């Protein structure tokens, strides 16, 4: 286990579309200030944004944990929400359970989880229907220059 250089928890309320993106913006500037490489920052920002939008779109509330070690940036999103009955199906690009209102705003295109997978080096999703979802991602410092 590498030593943690930075750790923080960011609470997010469900349904607050107006502020959606604030937490991921903060995460992006924190990582930049820590001197993390630009490609890792780019990937982390995308993962943080998608995680934040998922909480805002589907959950009652949730928390994003950001941790940075010399080897990796980890973004972990844990929410209290409806959960995902079929994770494999939810991972498919284009699959979405978003409401028409959410879709009209350009969210809910069924690209969130697949983008999280695409831009992370490891991804672990656990979910319990009626309880919530926990998405853990890791981006290795070395693999993205």
């Amino acid at each position, binding site marked *: 286990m590498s030593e943690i250089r930075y750790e923080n928890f960011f609470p997010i309320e469900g349904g607050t579309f107006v502020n959606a993106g604030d937490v991921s913006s903060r995460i992006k500037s924190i990582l930049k200030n820590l001197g993390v490489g630009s490609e890792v920052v780019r990937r982390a920002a995308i993962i943080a944004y998608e995680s934040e939008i998922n909480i805002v779109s589907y959950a009652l509330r949730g928390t994003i944990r950001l941790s940075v070690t010399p080897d990796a940036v980890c973004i972990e999103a844990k929410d209290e929400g409806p959960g995902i009955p079929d994770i494999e199906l939810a991972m498919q690009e284009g699959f979405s359970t978003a409401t028409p209102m959410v879709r009209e*705003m350009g969210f809910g295109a069924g690209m969130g989880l697949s983008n999280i997978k695409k831009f992370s080096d490891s991804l672990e999703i656990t979910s319990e229907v009626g309880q919530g979802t926990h998405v853990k991602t890791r981006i290795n410092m070395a693999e993205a220059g």
Partner: protein
Amino acid sequence: MKLEEIAGKLNLRVLCCDEGLSREVRGGFVGDLLSDVMANSREGDLWITRQVHPNIVAVAVMKEHSAILLVQGGIPVEDTLSRARKEGIPILGTEINGFEAAGKIYGLMNP
């Protein structure tokens, strides 16, 4: 190419933040799906979209776009403009559609 030059040649309306017109446009991206824009656009892009709600500013800030261009006469809601002013992201507007806007801007940048 400077944003100012593109705005002048295509007669774009500056809806917000003319102090940002000196920004350098490095490329462009067309999209209305925010996940697509987040994943695939690049820093310095001029983002062409039909979306007008405040979340477009958050995406443009995160991706460090040079500006947002609203096509087909899209009018941003007031909250979008106030956020753009706060973040200093220029918002431009045009009556033409995304296809024409992208084609014309591409042509200017790749003569």
